[in-house]
């Protein structure tokens, strides 16, 4: 099912938690609502589910206006951060409970529940109580329970936040697999950019209730339209320098970087760590090596530029040591210029 948001706004008293969203989520996509905590992403999800009423604007599922429809009539499945499995019911009962409410016959609903349990790989745990399951298993059961009614949309609210790092990796691949097998339109809330980048078809990046940018993860990374987008995505984070452009040079505290730009004004230069080359003859600027860290297969380099530390990756051929000055050249890809309002130039 396609989800259409038309000028959706949520106000809590005077505070705009979600500000004028117009968006379309295509059928069968896995969409991430991404942003720092308090940006309104959970509020937006809860408006789509119907738990929180919309202040202004309309929500459509396909062509159907669901703005004032009660949650139980929206044909959605919801998974909460802490799973909210009924502690007194077995895994089988938990998964089949939505069908029990619909008065589906016991044999039929249990058969369907077993099928769902197989999909999420908990079919060996059917008689266990939630307290006897690991976090990841509870998560799987919660997803099965959300899917058993064959919802048109699956909504997941920070589903991986309660898991440890290794389980989180495993479960995000599982969510991706389950989504691809069922082809259900899925909306996923997270504050973890790596999580969002790795599983989603599309990312909706939000800040303070305002939509920053919507696109495929790689497009957001390669072509951020706002400074916030460039800084929020990427690990290690992007290097940002606020300064002035003057006739062929970007200046920060009287230190210069050679740069190709058209107007003399105040700008922010944002450079991805991988967008810096080493070039002793034809360099754009110089900096001093402050530290070198070997992390797994990569070596991270900290460069002292004036009073700033810039991050980049070392190459195997780099034969400079800590304290040495080196010449650096900016690549075309991964270098962005933003104006003082944070918009891309």
């Amino acid at each position: 099912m396609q989800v259409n948001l038309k000028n959706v706004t949520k106000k809590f008293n005077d505070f705009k938690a979600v500000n004028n969203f117009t968006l379309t989520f295509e059928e069968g996509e896995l969409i991430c609502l991404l942003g720092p905590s308090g940006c309104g992403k959970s509020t937006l999800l809860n408006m789509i589910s119907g738990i929180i009423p919309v202040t202004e604007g309309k929500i459509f599922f396909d062509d159907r206006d669901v703005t004032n429809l009660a949650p139980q009539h929206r044909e959605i499945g919801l998974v909460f951060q802490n799973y909210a499995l009924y502690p007194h019911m077995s895994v089988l009962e938990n998964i089949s409970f939505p069908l029990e409410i619909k008065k589906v016959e016991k044999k039929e609903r249990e058969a369907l529940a077993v099928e769902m349990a197989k999909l999420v790989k908990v079919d060996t745990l059917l008689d266990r109580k939630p307290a006897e399951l690991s976090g990841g298993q509870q998560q799987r059961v919660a997803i099965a329970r959300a899917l058993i009614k064959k919802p048109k949309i699956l909504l997941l609210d920070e589903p991986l936040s309660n898991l440890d790092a290794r389980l989180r990796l495993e479960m995000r691949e599982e969510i991706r697999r389950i989504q691809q097998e069922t082809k259900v339109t899925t909306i996923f809330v997270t504050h973890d950019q790596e999580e969002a980048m790795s599983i989603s078809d599309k990312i909706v990046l939000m800040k303070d209730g305002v939509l920053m940018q919507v696109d495929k993860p790689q497009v957001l990374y390669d072509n951020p339209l706002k400074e916030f987008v460039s800084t929020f995505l990427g690990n290690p984070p992007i290097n940002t320098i606020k300064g002035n452009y003057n006739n062929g040079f970007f200046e920060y505290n009287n230190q210069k970087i050679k740069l190709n730009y058209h107007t003399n004004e105040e700008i922010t230069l944002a450079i991805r760590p991988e967008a810096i080359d080493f070039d002793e003859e034809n360099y754009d600027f110089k900096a001093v090596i402050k530290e070198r860290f070997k992390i797994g297969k990569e070596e991270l380099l900290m460069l002292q530029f004036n009073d700033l530390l810039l991050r980049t990756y070392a190459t195997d051929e780099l034969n400079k040591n800590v304290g040495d000055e080196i010449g650096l050249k900016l690549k075309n890809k991964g270098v962005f210029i933003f104006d003082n309002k944070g918009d891309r130039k």
Partner: protein
Amino acid sequence: MSRQQFSLNNKIEPILYLSPFFFGLIIWTLYPFINVLLISFKENYNLLTGSYKNLGLGNYIYVLNNLKFLNALRNTGIYVIFTVPISTFLALIFANLLNQKLKGIALFQTAYFLPLVTSATAIGLVWKLMFNTNFGAINQILSYLNISPIHWLDYPKNNIYTLIIFGVWNILPFTIILLLSGLQNINPLYYTVAKLDGASDFKIFRRITIPLLSPTIGLVLIINTISTSKVYSELFPIFSGRPGIADNLYTVVYYIYDLFYVKWDLGKAAAASVILFLILFALTLSQLQIQKKWKHY
């Protein structure tokens, strides 16, 4: 301060903190309990001289063959069997109502808990007036429903119902408090999830609230069974200090009181107390056993 002194202090200090409690426990619970047990085996025991005729089971044999005691046992049993389930059932309904997020709910909560801070005797006198056959409020209300006046107080066979109604009312607030606190411990997210799936209020109550509340319900049943088995003070205000209008409504504790203070027969009173204790002990154990099977998680 030397190291040794320090460790000695460490040992004495906790004992000092605990001692007031143990002191009280020994003097007011343990000693009387053991003493009652000992006295129950002494036939014709005299409290003042400490003399007795025989050491044996005579008191028990007398009590267990005494019609008055058996009658008291029956009355108490009926009282418990009706009062506990009825009050628990009503409290469950009221606790659920009081758990709603409504305007002015605090006012209702206060109103329901008010009986807890009033004296049972004072309230009992009010109930006595309300039970009056000719001008009591209860018969008045029943007359609106075209029910002819019931002789709550002056017809002996009705006395047990009168006592049960008063008893239910009496333990209701305490039961509601326990159940309400149990209800408030249930994560509201379970209700949200169930409602999202379209569950009716009754379905949620039956499949989620009741199972998750079952430990509290079990506790309420045990506490109320014990407290109602000791029914005694409720009799005084309603029946003018007598066990029923024709001395027909002896309860076990009233029987013990009668033997002790009126008949001054300490040995038999002690034996009856021990029998009551054993019955309550067995009841509590079996209830705990049943509750274990109830526990769902």
